[in-house]
Structure formats: C-alpha cells, structure tokens
C-alpha cells in the first residue's frame, strides 16, 4: 500500500471500511484511494464485495464502520445526490435506469437541462434528444429512436446509455462497475478510450472489471478483494501483468481445468481438440512467455 507514486490529497479516501447487510458481512477492513489523473482498478472474484465498495463511494449505501473523505474532508453521504454534487458520477452494475422512460429522459435523469427562467423554465427537449443520440453514436450505438423506452433496448445498448451518461456528467471522479460486461468488442474499446481520456483530463477513475486485459493497460493502482477482505493493493510499479492475471484468475484452477478436459479426451477425440485449445488460452492468460511484449 505504497503512497510513493502520487502526492497531494486524494480525491476520495476510504479507510477501514466495513459494510453489513443484516447478518451478512459484505466488506470489512477495506481501504481505497482515488487520485486525480489516476485509474484505480478494483478486482476480485464474484461476490468479493466490489459493487458494495463502490456503492459506498457513490452514496448509495453508508459504511457501518470506517471513514470516508472527499478531497480531504470527512463526509457522510446519505444519498447519491450528494455524491453527484461532489462531482462523483457512477455507472452501477445494475445500470440504474428506469425501464418505462424514454432513452433520452433516462440519459438526463437527475441532471435535466432546462431553458427559460422562473416558472416558465422547462426541459430543453431538443437539446437532450440530440445530445443523447450523438453521445450514443460516439460509442458505436446507432439507436433507431431515442424515444424508445429504455427497457426495450438490448442489454449492451442499455449499458452504453449508462456509461455515456456517467461520462457526460462526471466532473471529478468517475466510477465504473463492470462497464464492459455486456458490450461488444468495438463498444468495449470505446469505453477504454473514455477511461483514458478522463484520466488525461485529470479525473480520478475507479474501474471494476473481470478482464485483466482491460485492467492492466489502463490501471494505475490495483485493489484486490477476496470474500469481502483486501487481498492486496498495488501500484502499477509493484505488480506485473502476469502476477495480476494469476491473482485474478486463480490461475492454478484454470490450468487444472484444461488438464481435466485432457483426461476426458482419452475417451473422446473431439473433446481433446478443445482441451488443447483451452490450454493455449490458459497459457496465454496466466503466464505469457514472450517478455518483450510487456510495456513499461
């Protein structure tokens, strides 16, 4: 947990955070820092507590123990609205959209753009529709109709709306909970590019993903969680791509899987072929042999 890389107060600092749902302890003893112009990756198995952690940052939940500081000031958000007012924008894993509402209304929900003054102040519908269409087109999503209820969009389209919205409104901190899960290769690429841009503009980014190929290139800090506890926190200097991948994948398990399949292959030639392929994948995932490929 080195503080070597950056100086100055972090945008967001959580210390020794704990969260319980009734008797369920979802998170305990977790600390996290987000610095301007840095990407903090939170990695971990399913159910490790990643989403719970970011929900605390975004004001959806309050921690049961631990402290939370924004720009050095201790805070206690009782609603996401307060976090938003501090410039913290979030893409939730469940996307937080209102299914029956049109796409553009969802895009601007909570941050509507208005024109006119006083009692005549009203929504600037044309601007919001156009912006929604443009922002989504930039992500590679060409909507038929921004007036479609968002509930009728495909999973990936819906995720793109949530991301485009957060990117559009994110002022200081951008939190992304598995943003690329349902996305096509092209759209996922765009999201990575967005993260780089936000980083370049000096925003602090929290990025949750299960894909080490996405995490390593863009991340500056890595926080690993396991069963609600921190497994380790590293800056990029302190960890190699291989080590990270192994930690994430539970590398041994994947190897075991391919061995198992090979065993079965004795009985079924066809299966053997696939086992071979998987083995290659494993090799590629958890310990690449060509060192010159690695950057930095």
């Amino acid at each position, binding site marked *: 947990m080195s503080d070597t890389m950056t100086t100055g107060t972090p945008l967001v600092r959580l210390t020794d955070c704990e969260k319980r749902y009734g008797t369920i302890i979802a998170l305990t003893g977790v600390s996290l820092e987000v610095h301007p112009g840095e990407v903090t990756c939170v990695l971990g198995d399913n159910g490790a507590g990643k989403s719970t952690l970011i929900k605390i940052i*975004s004001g*959806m939940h309050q921690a049961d123990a631990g402290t939370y500081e924004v720009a050095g000031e201790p805070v206690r958000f009782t*609603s*996401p*609205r307060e976090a*938003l*007012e501090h410039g913290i924008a*979030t893409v*939730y894993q*469940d*996307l*937080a*959209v*209102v*299914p*029956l*509402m049109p796409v553009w*209304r969802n895009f*601007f*929900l*909570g*941050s*509507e753009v*208005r024109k006119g003054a006083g009692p005549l*102040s*009203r*929504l600037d*519908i*044309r601007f919001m*529709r*156009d912006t929604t*269409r*443009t922002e989504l*087109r930039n992500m590679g999503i060409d909507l*038929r*109709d*921004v*007036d479609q209820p968002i509930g009728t969009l495909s999973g990936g389209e819906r995720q793109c709306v949530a991301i485009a*919205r957060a990117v559009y409104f994110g002022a200081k901190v951008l939190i992304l909970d598995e943003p690329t899960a349902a996305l096509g290769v092209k759209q996922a690429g765009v999201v990575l590019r967005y993260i780089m841009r936000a980083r370049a503009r000096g925003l602090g980014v929290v990025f949750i993903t299960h894909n080490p190929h996405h995490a390593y290139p863009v991340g500056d800090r890595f926080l690993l969680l396991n069963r609600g506890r921190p497994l380790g926190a590293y800056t990029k200097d302190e960890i190699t791509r291989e080590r990270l991948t192994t930690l994430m994948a539970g590398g041994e398990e994947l190897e075991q899987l391919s061995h198992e399949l090979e065993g079965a292959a004795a009985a079924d030639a066809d299966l053997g072929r696939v086992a071979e392929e998987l083995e290659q994948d494993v090799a590629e995932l958890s310990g690449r042999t060509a060192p010159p490929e690695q950057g930095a």
Partner: protein
Amino acid sequence: MSQAADTAAPSPPDERLARRSPLARLLARPETGSLAGAVVIYVFFFAVAPPFRGLDALATILYASSTIGIPAVAVALLMIGGEFDLSAGVAVTSSALVASMLSFQLTLNLWVGIAVGLLLALGVGALNGYLVMKTGIPSFLVTLATFLMLQGLNLAITKVITGNVASPDIADMDGFGAARKVFAAEWNLGGLSLRISVVWWLLFTAIATWVLLRTRVGNWIFAVGGAQSSARAVGVPVRRVKIGLFMTVGFLAWFTGMNLLFSFTTVQSGEGVGNEFLYIIAAVIGGCLLTGGYGSAIGAATGAFIFGMTTQGIVYAGWNADWFKFFLGAMLLGATLLNLWVRRRTEAAR
C-alpha cells in the same frame, strides 16, 4: 419532435424501422385509446338518450366529472409516482369543514378559514408523505390510517363544535361572495349553466400535463414511480418528490373541498368517504398503472369524464335504477376493452 432529431442527424431512413402512416402515429399516442372510449360512450348515449343530447346535459356531465376530475389529476400524478392516497376523499371534507367551522365559530372572514383549511390539507399530505418515506410502510396503509383518523375527526369534531353532523351555513358571512366566485361560480349563458369548476378542472389538467412532460419535476415523478432505487442512484431527490406529490393531492383535495363548501354553503361531516376510490378509478381508466411509472393527466381527466358520463348517461337514458351498477360496470369494461383494442390495432398497423 422527430424532426428535431432529423435535423441533428440528417440520415437516410433506418432500414430497421417499418414505416408508419401519420394516422397510425396519432393513434399510437397513449391518450388516444381512452379518448376513443370516451367518444364511443358519448355517441352511444347520444343515440339512446334524447335528454342527453342537449347542451345543458353536457354541462351537467362536465360538472359531475369535474368534481371527480380535479382531485383525480393529483391522484394520477401520485400514482405515476408510485404511491396511493386513500385519504384524499375525506381530506376534501376535512378542509371544507375546517374552513367553514373555524370562520363561523370565531366569526372571522371566510378567507381566513380558507387559508387554514389549505394549511391543514397540505399538512395532512406532508404527514402522509413523511411517514411513507421515513418508515417505509406502504402508502396504502399509511393513508388508510389517516383516512380513518380524518373520518373520525370530521365526525367527532363537527359533533363537538356544532352539536350536529353538518357544518353551519356560511352563506351570509364576510368573504362568501368573493370566495364563491373563485371556487364555485356559475354562469348562466342562455339557460345553460356553466360552472367554474369545469374550467379549473381543464386548467389543472393542462398544468399537470405540462409539468409531467415538460419540466424536471415531471421527469422525476415518472422516475420515482418507475424505479425508485434507480432514480435515487442518479440523484433524483426521491423523498422531496414524493412528499411534494402527497401535498399536491392535499392541495387539490382542499380545492375540491372549497368548491363543495361554496356550492352548497354547508358540508356533511360524513361526506367524501369512498370518493378516494373514484379518483383512483378515474386515474386507472385513464391508463395510469397501479404499480407506478406510467400514466398521464389527460388520461385521468378522460377517465373522470368517462366515469361521469356513464353515471349520468344511465340516468338520462332512464334505465331501471336497480340495474344502475350493472350498466356502469358493463360500460366501464366496454370502454376499457375498446381502449385496449385501439392500442393493439395501432401496434399491429406498422
């Protein structure tokens, strides 16, 4: 509206969209179905009931609809916001009772009573909203409790103060004339009596429609009703919106109460019970979802009109009063099925 998008991105027609005629596009609007129901019922009674044909009959129907329709507008907004208010019916009576008894007992100008009645109605709304948001108890239960308590207070306090079950007559008190002009004026246009409550009804419907579709608050109302936790997650002030909606119901209940008071100069303390369901029924006929997140103020107005028209139409037609409820149920079912059929047709007509 679709032009706005087209100018922004002048693209060739999307090959993934089937073409649709302008008529089909009009018919696909959510209000069209319930409007069709209203028109068909109107035509039906026009055909079978000669007294129904006169303009004076229309005035009567509009008036009857307006007394349901005014609170129904607020109830519809609340239902779009995902909550119920069972206390709306008796809140109407409560505010009228308070306004008249306070002014009468203390011999004050009526406007003082009117103002206190407004405060009370808003207070009840705020209390409902606060309890719902604070405790998380379903609004059905919270407002059921306030419904019963208000009903009890109406009866008991009226009894204690007046020794009677109705409020005293206030026709000769200060401020009556002006207040009547505002809340319950009646114009006689060549034998045709037009009532101001109809005008107010249309006005409130228009305002509510504008708020729902053209303002930020409207966006928030749809959002808190459609997916409360999502709305909260993107920064909608859910609590304020919902309390505001309950207070809106309080406001229009008060308004209806004033209409009642200045139309009839006194109020029965037991009145209003059961009307809360008429408001909900009007909203539902007009297409509001009971589960929240969907509906329109125009729909609620249409629903009130359908209900008012059917209730009066059966009387104008002179059908046997014993069968009244049966006809009412059958016509409502018919109107709803027609509404549905229109929507299905327009969806099929691509």
